Every structure is written in structure tokens, then in C-alpha cells.
């Protein structure tokens, strides 16, 4: 008898817990439209930066490639010609490809780069329907000229790239500025992720 009553009590307790939860604050982030804010040094998709004058930082030294534990980076360097200087130095990267399926996002390339050309951004939305689309080549890694020069991780305000859309305020330690809504840069990336650029390259 006592046991039965105990059971009733247990059921009532369970009901009260679920009822309380109904009015509790929900931690859900409505992801596609609102994204979670990451740590400033979050290791996401790579990007190749430029100098302020628009030149590429990468000099095609292949240090990143040799530092990569997953052998995900392929760099083929080429000489700069005076009429077409891609980078300030003698050489530039003719091809620069990262296989994001192999990449383990360890940041060794970032460490190894002598010119701070390759950095890991907090972007993480890389899913695609084809394996090939996940081999990012230079045209997708390099910051487009109209989008600025790219930001070094240490200078990145709150570690939020400008193209992530609305950000959920989930970490009270970090203040989020307004103005980080979708920008031109985000739009560009969106278009590229649809594979248009890749198709162009395959042609």
C-alpha cells in the first residue's frame, strides 16, 4: 500500500517536472536563420588573405602543405611575372586546394604560414551533395577583392565573421555588436556553395 502511494507521488512529481519545463527558457537556436556564436579562435573553413593593396599574401612556399597532418593541402607554386604580380614576393600559389573532407581543422597550416596568408575562420556550413564540391580550390578560398582583405584571428571582433547572418546571443561573456547581419561577402559565399564556381572551374 505504501509502495503504491509512493508510486502515485512519483508520477505526480514527474508530471510537475515536465510542466515546469514547459515554461522554462528553451536553449534552441533556430539554426538556419540564427546561428550560434563561436569562440574567437574557432577552427572552421580556411580562407586565404590579401594585403591591403589587394595582393595575395600566399607566396606558394608549401610550408602549410608539409605541416598538414592529414595531407589535405595541395600547393603548387609559380613565379610571379612582372606584368602580373599576384603577390609581393617572387612566387605565388598557382594552385591552392584543401580537401575539407580530410582536413581535421587542427590549425597547423595557420601556425606554419610565414606570411599569415592562410587562416581558419569560424565558418562551418560546408555540407554539400558531392564529394568533389568539398575540395576547395583557390577561387573559393581566396577572399574576393570586393570583400576586403580578410581578418587575422586576433583582430577578429568577437570572432564572428561578417557573413554568418543573425547570431544567437548564447554566451553572456561576449557582447555582440549589431551589424553582423548578412553582408555581401556572405552572399558571395552562398552563391559559390551552390557549386556554380566549381562547375565553372571544371569546365
Amino acid at each position, binding site marked *: 500500500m505504501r509502495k503504491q502511494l509512493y508510486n502515485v507521488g512519483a*508520477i505526480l512529481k*514527474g*508530471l510537475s*517536472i*515536465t*510542466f515546469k*519545463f*514547459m*515554461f*522554462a527558457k*528553451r*536553449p*534552441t537556436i*533556430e539554426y538556419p536563420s540564427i546561428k550560434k556564436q563561436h569562440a574567437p579562435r574557432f577552427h572552421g573553413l580556411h580562407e586565404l588573405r590579401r594585403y591591403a593593396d589587394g595582393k595575395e599574401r600566399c607566396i606558394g612556399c608549401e610550408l602549410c602543405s608539409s605541416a598538414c597532418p592529414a595531407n589535405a593541402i595541395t600547393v603548387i607554386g609559380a613565379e610571379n611575372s612582372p606584368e602580373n604580380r599576384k603577390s609581393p614576393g617572387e612566387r605565388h600559389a598557382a594552385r591552392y586546394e584543401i580537401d575539407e573532407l580530410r582536413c581535421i581543422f587542427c590549425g597547423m597550416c595557420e601556425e606554419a604560414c610565414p606570411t599569415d596568408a592562410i587562416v581558419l575562420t569560424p565558418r562551418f556550413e560546408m555540407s554539400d551533395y558531392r564529394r568533389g564540391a568539398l575540395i576547395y580550390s583557390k577561387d573559393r578560398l581566396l577572399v574576393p577583392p570586393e570583400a576586403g582583405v580578410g581578418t587575422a584571428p586576433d583582430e577578429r571582433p568577437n570572432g564572428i565573421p561578417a557573413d554568418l547572418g543573425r547570431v544567437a546571443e548564447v554566451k553572456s561573456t561576449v557582447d555582440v555588436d549589431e551589424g553582423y547581419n548578412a553582408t555581401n561577402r556572405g552572399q558571395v559565399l552562398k552563391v559559390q556553395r551552390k557549386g556554380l564556381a566549381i562547375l565553372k572551374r571544371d569546365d
Partner: protein
Amino acid sequence: MPDWIIILIKSAILLLVVVTTFAYSMLAERKVLGWMQLRPGPNRVGPWGLMQPAADAAKLILKEDLTPRTADPLIYRLAPFISLLTAFSVYAIIPFGASSAGTWAIGNVNAGILFLLAITSIGVYGITLGGWASGSKYPLLGSVRATAQMISYELGMSLSFIGVLILAGTTSLDGIVNAQAKWWFVVPQFIGFIVYIITAVAETNRVPFDLVEAETELVAGFHTEYSGLRFGLFFIAEYVNMLTVSCIASLLFLGGWNAPFGLDNLHVPGVIWFIIKVGFFMFFYMWLRATLPRFRYDRLMAFGWKFLLPLATLNLVVTAIIVAYMGH
């Protein structure tokens, strides 16, 4: 207009109302479950997800309707309709409110509550036949479980009704509601109410008594093999049954369309009170589903036969004795 046209119109309206209610109660369930699990629930289709039911319906209708090779074709196709038919036909006698012109019901049957029992006792055929006709083992197990469970719990349910019948002195549903003008029967029949709530959950195969469609053990129980619209019919039947037992609970124990706590002078239409009460029970079902784990099968049967049935019988005997000595 001849009577039968009026009845036809009434039925059509009612059908529309019930189906809409089904659709939105399904949405509400997903919402409530979400909230209780700290999720927002469906909110993508339309504002606050209000178009979700339409989307679901479209999906179910457009889905391919499969019939397994081992299935018994006739009964396999018949079963969902039996479920649906019995689920809907109960609404013929449920009164939703009353005005000076009479009660709001399609038909006012004198033996209303018995009619109801009769219809619900047929409802199990849909599940049993569907499970049997699927021609595979999980549905069969599910349907055998359904049969045993529903026969067992129907006894407790009927007995919990009888306490109310003794107090009301009538078997017509509006008579019962009118008898509760002063005291809702949940007060004198509290044990009956508890028994009814438990058996009603079991009769509708809802958590924690959803052994019939236990995902973890029986894949999906009796409707494992069903897909598309036929699955949808079972689904509708389940929710409509839920709605039915909620209506009955409101009518029998919570005073139907009577205003609570002497709030008569608010002049709120009775049907509003009724909807609030039914809504409360629907919410209670969802609440239970969010809270309780499933019963073990032998515990389920032991609980039904060794606890609920004696309890309901005791309640009945005590009620009868008290009524016999105190008068109505």
C-alpha cells in the same frame, strides 16, 4: 427541410470540426511535447507552424500506398476504415452544449453512454484486423496485445461509468450533464474519475499504455506495414478517439458545459466551457506522453485486472450502498 437533411448538414459540419480539431490537436501535441522537452516544436510551415497539419496531410496523401505481399488484401484495406468509422460515429451522440432550444448534438439517444461503450468496443477491430492482415510478425504481436489490453481495460472503464450512472440516474449524456448542475461528479466519484482517466489512456493506446505500437519493441506495432493514407487513417482514428474520451471525461465528470465554481453569471456560452475542459484533457494526454515511460506488458495486465478492476468494483459498490441509503 426534412429531418434527414438537417442531420446530414449537422454531420458534415461536425465532421469538419472534428477533423480540424484532430489536425490541430496533432500540431498542439507536437508543440507541447516540444516545449516540455525544451524545444520550440514545429514552427516552420506558416506562422508558428500553423500550416503544419496541411503539410502533413499533403505528405501522407501523396505518399506511396504499399500493400505487403503476405498481407490479406481485403482486410488489410478494410481495417483503417473500421477504425475511422467507429472513431467518428461516436460523435453522433456527444452533446457539445445546450441552449434553450435543446442540446447541441446530432442525435440524443437515451442509452447514450451505452451506445458509446458499444461503439468503442467495436473500435478495437480496426487495430486487431489491421495487425492480423499485415501478414508479418510485429503487427500481429501488436494486434494481439491490443485485443487483450482493450478488452481488459474496457471492463474498468464501464465500471467507472456505472458509478456516474447511479448518481445521475440516467444513461443519456445530457441527463448526466444536467445532473451535475450543482456538483460535478468528479467530487463524489473521484475514484471513478481516476479509473476512467487511466482506462481511457489505455483504450486509446496512448503513453504509457502504448504497448500496441511500442516503437522500441514492435517497430510500430499494428501499423508497421501501413504507409501513406491508410496509416493516416489510423492516425486520425487515434487522435479522434483521444478527443472522444476527453469529451466523455468532461461530460461525465467535469459537468460538461456547466460553468465551474458558480461562474454562471459571466454568461460565457456553455460550449466555451466545454471546449476548455476538453482542451484540458487533451493537454493532459500530451503531458502524460511527455512524462511517463511505457508499462511492461505483464504489469499492464496485472494493473488492469488486479488493481483497477477491483478498485472500480469497490467504488461501484460503495456508491451503490451510499445512494441506496441516502437517496439521490
